[in-house]
């Protein structure tokens, strides 16, 4: 991965440097679009974060300045039939290893209005699953997303098809994805593996894998793949007001690994997720760059069958199998009073899906006012305060200052 990243950086660097030196020399061919237009569009997004506050758990404090992430995007048409998008992220100020966040090819010339993509991607699920951290409407993701969809979000290697329809003059989009697993904390494999240090019988400290993902991953058979789908319906209520509705579902039910006699060798978490989202927007036609309003809310539901957690030392059951039903949601309003300013307020509700005791769903509630200022389309500063009521009654207050800059080509703004 480091080698791959090194090569990619070299390519990015050489593109910038070569372009820069040729501009300095006034190379005439560079002004000819045909000579440079075949380069992919390369963008770099840097997201800086300063935070402080009073955490519920003092040992978990992350006060200070952070280079939260640098993301490199490389995008281009492959040919008349396909487009490719690659996003390398995971780079932060702590020296974390870079990671291919997404890399997929979209087939753009399929018949019947069908579009398909394959590779590694975030599935079209819910409203914010596909949104990268720097593009989120607030500094942090709603609590429901991290807990239900994982920090890496719901996605992975696979393929997705989608089609649009126009029933009764509405815009409707249906998509379906077949994925290796649900990704993030939902999947199995080394990138999701947790470890712990234990003392062995010789008195030496050793690192061992612990659940989830301590055992072998489910067999890579079609029946063990994950499924995700979404139906989106959009309607212009007037020229300035519109309504966006989405209904999503995801399913990951890998079969237990058994021996020849049918005895279970390894069983796995089975997860069902559902989400419903609603967005109401207002934006005046003539003064739309100066004023707007948005209200968005999303409800998520998890039905998880969690496999027992075994001790890494003796295989005894540390936590029994459980079936949990959990709910979560968020809602926020955002007001744009002037071209460069936006302020908003988000509320969160979360029942922790990792808690197996169904009689005591650990509930977190939070409220987060924020304000953002954008000197230009490519530059944003955002201030946010989050007050959380944690399970057990503790209160946490966090303040954030986020600074995001975009270098590179002007990208279209997602709606």
């Amino acid at each position: 991965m480091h080698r791959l990243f090194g090569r990619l950086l070299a390519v990015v660097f050489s593109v910038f440097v070569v372009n820069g030196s040729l501009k300095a020399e006034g190379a005439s061919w560079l002004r000819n679009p045909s000579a440079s237009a075949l380069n992919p569009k390369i963008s770099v997004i840097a997201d800086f974060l300063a935070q402080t506050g009073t955490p519920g758990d003092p040992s978990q404090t992350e006060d200070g300045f952070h280079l939260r992430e640098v993301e490199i995007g490389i995008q281009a048409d492959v040919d008349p039939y396909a487009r490719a998008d690659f996003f390398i992220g995971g780079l932060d100020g702590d020296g974390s290893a870079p990671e291919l966040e997404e890399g997929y090819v979209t087939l753009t010339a399929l018949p019947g209005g069908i579009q398909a993509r394959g590779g590694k991607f975030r599935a079209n699920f819910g409203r914010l699953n596909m949104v990268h951290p720097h593009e989120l409407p607030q500094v942090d993701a709603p609590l429901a997303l991290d807990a239900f969809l994982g920090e890496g979000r719901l996605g992975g290697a696979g393929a997705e098809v989608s089609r649009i329809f126009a029933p009764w003059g509405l815009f409707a989009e249906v998509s379906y994805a077949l994925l290796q697993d649900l990704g993030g904390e939902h999947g199995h494999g080394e990138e999701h593996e947790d470890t712990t240090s234990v003392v062995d019988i010789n008195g030496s400290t050793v690192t061992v894998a612990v659940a989830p993902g301590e055992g072998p991953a489910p067999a890579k058979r079609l029946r063990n793949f994950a499924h995700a789908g979404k139906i989106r319906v959009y309607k212009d209520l007037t020229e300035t007001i519109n309504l966006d509705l989405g209904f999503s579902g995801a399913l990951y039910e890998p079969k237990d690994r058994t021996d020849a006699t049918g005895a279970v060798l390894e069983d796995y978490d089975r997860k069902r997720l559902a989400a419903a989202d609603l967005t109401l927007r207002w934006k005046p036609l003539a003064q739309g760059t100066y004023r707007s309003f948005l209200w968005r809310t999303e409800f998520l539901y998890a039905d998880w069958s969690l496999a027992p957690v075994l001790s890494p030392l003796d295989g005894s059951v540390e936590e029994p199998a459980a079936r949990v039903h959990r709910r979560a949601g968020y809602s926020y309003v955002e007001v744009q009073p002037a071209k460069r300013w936006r302020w908003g307020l988000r509320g969160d509700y979360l029942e922790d899906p990792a808690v197996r005791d169904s009689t005591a769903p650990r509930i977190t509630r939070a409220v987060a006012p924020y304000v953002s200022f954008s000197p230009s389309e490519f530059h944003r500063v955002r201030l946010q305060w989050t007050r959380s009521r944690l399970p057990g009654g503790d209160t946490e207050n966090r303040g954030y200052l986020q600074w995001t800059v975009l270098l590179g080509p002007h990208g279209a703004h997602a709606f």
Partner: protein
Amino acid sequence: MKRILLALFFSAGGLAAAPLKVVTTTPDLADLARRVGGERVSVACLSRGVQDPHFVEAKPSLILKLREADLYIQTGLELEAGWAPLLLQGARRAQVQPGGTGFLDASRFVRPLEVPSDVSRAGGDVHPGGNPHYLGDPRNAVAVAAGLAGKLAELDPAGKPMYDANARAYGERLWLKIVEWEKRLAPARGARYVSYHRNLVYFADWAGLSSAGEIEPKPGIPPSPRHTADLIKLMKEQKIPLVLTMPYYEKRSSDALAAATGARVVVMSLMPDGVSREDDYLSVMERNVGEIIAAVSR
């Protein structure tokens, strides 16, 4: 059976006569497409004239307009770079994707002004290919109309005589108006103005007006108090009589300039549907010319 055959015959005839579905990004291009295409085309537009064409929202309802389009026409020069690509991708229609037979960038028919020699965002929201507001010059509209005729004939060869005739007739009509407008604009030649954004460069180049500066310190950057104060000082020193703006820009800055300097604010539109819903390109230019003449002869 006879009735079925007759029905099939007439329905086939009806299909053959189905108009070419043209979708344009802006109302000025839509009007030109209607003039040239006549009854052989049906034209839809992705934006309204009162909207800032740089910042149209890529609403899914606009994707529906594109999903059955035979021809997509854009202004180009990155005017629509912030929204049109999303609509094209969402439309899932191969022929109107860039490079497809139904994709047309109308800027290919004109000579762009203000092509930057050094592209940098330090200069604001710059357009690397040049200033995209070229239909502010009616001579460019003649060139675009002729280009549209060629493109429509390529997609619908049977309509070529009509497209050519329509483009010729519309071009002649435009040229007559251009000659008339240029005569009327003679007293305004050399008049200096301040505009909100650099979207009147082509109009000014044709009409003989001279820009003294913009309310935006750099393209896309809102005015600061310091910049506004400098502009007021400049306008007073040079006795600049005109502040030209568009319906989609905030009024406070232009009104403040006018109040401080005595200059007249003229709300112009380069788009049909910008000030009045019934406008077409010719009447838009007619109004712009009239407003400028009225303002300088005050």
